[in-house]
């Protein structure tokens, strides 16, 4: 399994190739990144109308409707123990703790867009034995 962030989820929804993800990978995201993406699509700053005349509401509905074969949103309840432990060890916020907890629980690789690599995160992932792939475009 490979866990992607909100930006890479968008790239996948756009039908673009994400270099860190192969066709054989089961692709998932955390609830935190899923929430960020939904929140961004609901943001007033994104306007009511986006490219191609597609209403933002339609994009939000698409993101919120799970599609078989799409990016799976991982249940945060299943990884709470690992997330709490990681937060206690490294002083992580909720987003990072859930990400580390999910990767450890599911023995997954993490793929992040360059803008979403927190300054302290690579060292945390390394300490936790989690592979990180960074996607630059």
């Amino acid at each position, binding site marked *: 399994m490979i866990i992607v962030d*909100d*930006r890479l989820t*968008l*790239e996948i*929804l*756009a*039908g*673009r190739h994400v270099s860190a993800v192969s066709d054989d990978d089961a692709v998932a995201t955390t609830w*935190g990144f899923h*929430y*960020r993406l939904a*929140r*961004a*699509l609901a*943001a007033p*700053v*994104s306007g009511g109308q*986006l*490219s*191609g*005349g*597609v209403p933002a509401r*339609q*994009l939000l509905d*698409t993101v919120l409707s799970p*599609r*078989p*074969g799409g990016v799976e949103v991982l249940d945060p309840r299943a990884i709470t123990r690992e997330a709490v432990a990681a937060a206690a060890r490294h*002083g*992580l*916020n*909720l*987003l*990072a703790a859930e990400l580390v907890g999910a990767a450890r629980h599911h023995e997954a690789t993490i793929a992040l*867009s360059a*803008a*979403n*690599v*927190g*300054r*302290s*995160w690579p060292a945390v992932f390394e300490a936790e034995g989690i592979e990180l792939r960074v996607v630059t475009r």
Partner: protein
Amino acid sequence: MLRCMQRTNIYLTDEQQRALAARARVGGTTKSAVLREILDAGLADTAPVDDALRTAFAAVADGYDELAALLFADDPDLHVDA
């Protein structure tokens, strides 16, 4: 609606056979018709995101880093570098 169809053999469990027969009885139709309805619904869910949506998602993706920074920079739970 007139549909062009091909005959296909599939294996079902006893439980699936019973459930299919029950649904057909209730609906006053055939097991084949029920199965086609289920397949139509299931396959519709897996339909790929259409081109207009993909274009719109691409546009959002291109400006997403700035948007996310604006929205989450001051959110202690959701920004990327606590």
